[in-house]
């Protein structure tokens, strides 16, 4: 008896959810933009900051009357799919996006997922904006991926060069988690450092992703006494612990990374020990942030209770998609038109003070314009907040 009632309830619940259509009660037609990324499990922080940035911006647009493309005003709806950081799920997510008639998707967050969805995206006419760095994703014959941020092989050299010139850094050590993304980023960083003439004193120390105590991991590196310690592809959760362990072991040199970090997490996890830590950020430091960026942070905080500084780099992808569609309304359903527009597209960057532009770049790295031009803002952490160290451009 009990079993039967239960099974019935379960079956009904499943059936109802399956049938439930996403009917938005809006007057404007709806433009759906997808997100495929990891929003549960260990790496949830990456995808969630991403998804929330998009939802904040969409809600903001809808509240102010919608987004006009080619004479029609649309409400923006974000369709999110949790791939659990599993490339198999990521493919299913991209199929789901195709099913929903979506042509523009942000994500996936990691290398393997971004590579796995390529066949689906290309056969279904979907442009996607991964946060993964492998060049093969963006070089021809690959056509539909657009790198959504600054890659480590672009930001790394800029940071190393700055530190060589301004801080007299001569030796560098690398440490990375033992999985695909960080290891690839480390290899890129080592090559860049060597090209700049830095002496790489340690490059093969790795840690398991699940490490909670970094003292034994860092002990061998500390003996090499580098001027600069690079945390390659470090996740925001591990960064404060690595910094804390290194400082407690008496490390005096500089520490940097090429990924985006959150000031609040650093403050809680490492406190004053994180002072001087260099990372890559968006445009949210006070002197760079435009009024629109400030309003974005305000709205994000209101919607989700707490801002995440990682979102500074993740606010751009949706803006690029919408602006490019506005520049060429034919691209709404035609990805080829979008790709053509990408070559010439240019619009003012609303999130940054000054005359920064939104445009597509990547000729020198990929041989085709398959990257969004995000200002390369290098931050330094000081007493609970980020300060701008320097700003550079990617071509």
């Amino acid at each position, binding site marked *: 008896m009990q079993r039967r009632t239960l099974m019935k309830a379960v079956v009904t619940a499943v059936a109802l959810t399956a049938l439930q259509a996403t009917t938005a009660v809006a007057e404007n037609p709806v433009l759906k933009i997808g997100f495929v990324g990891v929003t549960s*499990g*260990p790496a949830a*922080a990456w995808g969630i900051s991403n998804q929330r940035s998009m939802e904040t911006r969409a809600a903001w647009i809808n509240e102010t009357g919608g987004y006009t493309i080619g004479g029609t005003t649309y409400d923006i709806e974000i369709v999110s799919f949790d791939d659990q950081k599993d490339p198999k799920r990521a493919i299913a997510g991209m199929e789901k996006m195709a099913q929903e008639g979506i042509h523009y998707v942000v994500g996936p967050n990691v290398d393997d997922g971004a590579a796995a969805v390529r066949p689906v995206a290309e056969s279904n006419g979907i442009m996607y904006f991964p946060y993964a760095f492998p060049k093969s994703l963006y070089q021809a014959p690959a056509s539909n991926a657009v790198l959504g941020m600054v890659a480590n092989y672009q930001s790394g050299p800029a940071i190393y060069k700055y530190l060589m010139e301004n801080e007299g850094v001569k030796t560098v050590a690398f440490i990375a988690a033992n999985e695909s993304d960080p290891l690839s980023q480390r290899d890129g960083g080592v090559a860049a450092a060597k090209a700049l003439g830095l002496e790489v004193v340690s490059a*093969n120390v790795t840690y*398991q992703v699940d490490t909670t105590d970094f003292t*034994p991991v860092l002990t061998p590196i500390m003996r090499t006494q580098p001027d600069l310690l690079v945390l390659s592809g470090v996740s*925001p959760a591990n960064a404060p612990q690595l910094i804390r362990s290194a400082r407690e072991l*008496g490390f005096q040199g500089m520490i940097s990374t090429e990924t985006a970090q959150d000031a609040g997490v650093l403050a809680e*996890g490492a406190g004053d020990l994180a002072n001087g830590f260099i990372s890559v950020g968006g445009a949210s430091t006070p002197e760079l942030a435009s009024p629109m960026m400030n309003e974005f942070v305000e709205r994000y905080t209101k919607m989700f209770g707490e801002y995440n500084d990682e979102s500074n780099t993740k606010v751009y992808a949706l803006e690029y998609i919408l602006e490019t569609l506005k520049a060429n309304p034919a691209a709404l359903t035609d990805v080829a038109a979008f790709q053509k527009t990408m070559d010439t597209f240019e619009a003012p960057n609303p999130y940054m003070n000054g005359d920064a532009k939104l445009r597509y770049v990547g000729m020198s790295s990929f041989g085709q314009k398959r990257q969004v031009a995000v200002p390369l803002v290098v931050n330094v952490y000081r007493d609970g907040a980020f300060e701008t160290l320097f700003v550079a451009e990617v071509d």
Partner: protein
Amino acid sequence: MEQILANGVYLGSQYAMIALGLTLIFALMNVLNFAHGQMYVIGGFVTYTFYGQWGVPFVLALVMSCVTLAILGALIEKFLFAPVIKGSAREESTMLLAAGIAFFLDALILLVFGEKQRGVPKIVDGVFNYDFRLIMPYDRILICALAILSIVAFIGLMQYTKTGRALRALAQDRTAAQLMGVNVDRYSMIGFALGAMLAGLVGGLLVTITGVNLGMGGPTSIKAFMMVMIGGAGVISGAIWGGIILGFMEAIGLAVLSQYGDITYLLIFISLMIFLAIRPQGLMGKPWG
């Protein structure tokens, strides 16, 4: 060398504590608790909320972690594990239940505590530095001491109290214990609560050093499994030895093998497999678990 040993002692003591709770639950009910790591994470978040957010004294926050997890453990045992164990033909089926609970707690943690890494202010400042040969921050020394103290207290509880004796009897032979008048249902629940409480306690202790985030759960469970296997499943002393051995293996392995870089952990895992293949019941386990 001194540094490696100190790292080993520190890692070993915290690992042993994590393994203790898991092995206790396994010994009592033959349940491989996949949700152990998630319980550890909840313990960390409770201490974070009380101590880091609301400014409650650290010791009190720790107690809150213990209480929360003990209640959670008792409820899970009474309403989920006990009926499933009774109803299933093969007792391994509880692994599915444990995994389901792990998924559930992960989802709950994400909704309640968010996705960010959390940390609390240091409980003690300063670093012990002996001529740069042995460096140990004071808070680590304190946590290590507290962990060892808790382990001793736990052993005392198991050896010298009525509850402890009943639990040991239950672990040795369920049927015999029942015949001797031990209330099996009640003590299973107490044992499970105690195991969960240990997870909460170590989570609360370690949040001061490593912080806490929702991703730590699964990997912590797996690490705890390894320690339990090294020492021998379902044996209290085995869990302690397993924790200490894995702690030293990591500390020494990372120091000695660091020049091999990427394969350090590969070698650690392979040696673990060879060890288990040679000694299938772990160091001091009952044969065939």
